[in-house]
């Protein structure tokens, strides 16, 4: 189980990265933490002529608070989200979601941007980004930048709205007001596995976010359920609304109906917990 040959690039600036992506097009792939990409290369499920390793791009590391936004640069390791108290203070959901990702050895290497750009519909960060209303910042060759709402970024399984020559450089998470409540719940076959179903949710005065994961081809934002929640509907009703239109995929781990049943339960639990959190915070 060995990867096929590729040409390795280790640029040090964002411009160099986007330049390489522009030059090699579909034959190039960004290598961040490698915790999803390298297994696929080793299994020869995918192959690229060029790997563009972004781990040496200094401008992609770290995070910063910009007014009401937590800007997490793309190559920041997941372990930073887990360990740094500044993350838990600014975006609690990010800190709580992180321990659910794989195992600590994976999070030592895995990156925030890598997980978002990989866009696995069963992974946690995309759902967190959608639930919180995060924006994703993309860089193009020549230095142009654009921001996309997380809602618009995830378009399908392992597929995003980023162009082949665009690089995800940061995720911008809004810092929700102090009187907010958050919860993330998931059921996986084993600890650390991709979720059979999961939900990330957040609530504050006048605003709610609920995103399901593992139950569709992208994180699934359930606006009707959000509205019901804001309107004060009981958790069970919010949950019923959240799963009403779901049609989750089946695989060897669970049928679609199992995923729906689990999702309904998790939404009910998460919504209840988030409300409790909001009450305590207020």
């Amino acid at each position, binding site marked *: *189980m*060995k*990867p*096929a*040959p*590729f*040409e*390795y690039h*280790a640029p040090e600036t964002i411009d160099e990265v986007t330049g390489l992506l522009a030059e090699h097009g579909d034959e190039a792939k960004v290598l961040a933490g*490698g*915790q999803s990409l*390298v*297994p696929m*290369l*080793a*299994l020869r499920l995918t192959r690229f002529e060029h*790997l563009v*390793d972004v*781990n040496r791009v200094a401008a992609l590391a770290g995070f910063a608070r910009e007014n009401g936004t937590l800007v997490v640069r793309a190559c920041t390791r997941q*372990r930073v989200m887990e360990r740094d108290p500044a993350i838990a203070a600014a975006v609690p959901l990010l800190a709580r979601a992180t*321990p659910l990702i*794989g*195992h*600590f*050895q*994976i999070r*030592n*290497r895995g990156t925030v941007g890598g997980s978002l750009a990989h866009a696995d519909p069963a992974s946690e960060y995309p759902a967190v980004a959608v639930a919180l209303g995060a924006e994703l910042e993309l860089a193009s060759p020549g230095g142009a930048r654009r921001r996309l709402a997380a809602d618009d970024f995830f378009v399908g399984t392992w597929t995003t709205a980023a162009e082949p020559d665009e690089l995800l450089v940061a995720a911008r998470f809004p810092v929700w007001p102090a009187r907010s409540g958050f919860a993330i719940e998931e059921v996986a076959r*084993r*600890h*650390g596995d991709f979720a059979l179903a999961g939900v990330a949710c957040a609530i504050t005065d006048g605003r709610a976010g609920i995103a399901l994961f593992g139950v569709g081809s992208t994180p699934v934002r359930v606006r009707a359920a959000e509205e019901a929640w804001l309107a004060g509907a009981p958790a069970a009703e919010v949950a019923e609304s959240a799963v009403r239109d779901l049609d989750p995929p089946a695989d060897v781990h669970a049928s679609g109906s199992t995923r729906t049943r689990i999702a309904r339960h998790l939404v009910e639990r998460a919504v209840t917990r988030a409300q409790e959190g909001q009450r305590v915070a207020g």
Partner: protein
Amino acid sequence: MLPVEMTVNGERRRGAVDARRTLADYLREECALTGTHLGCEHGVCGACTVLLDGEAVRACLMFAVQADGAAVTTIEGLGGPDGALSPVQDAFREEHGLQCGFCTPGFVVSVTALLQENPKPSETEIREALSGNLCRCTGYQGIIGAVKRAADAR
């Protein structure tokens, strides 16, 4: 071939590698450090776990060239001189935390990293920290006992 230079168990290693050569294969074949084992080569079993600048990572999920400039510690680098066992290694022996021994290097490296960060883990924390390493022989019971013993010995 790409030049690569790293510190492995305190020794500086220079060489040239194919870009696609994994760190695990580099350590096993170029450095002859065969204690880093390959149990799945797709990042699940944890047998190839090493310390990269002090943090536990899967050596099968990195290319050797990516470790350029880094300090790598393998299972062979954890013990004392003259074959003395590290506290974690000793605890594995005392608590029967291994049978066939194939997964053991990955567990010992992971546990070493865990105890550096969290010297007194609870049982739940121990189990979660171990969940990234697969063992097929012990049922994990001896391994969990070994982590507790190593933590107590600190």
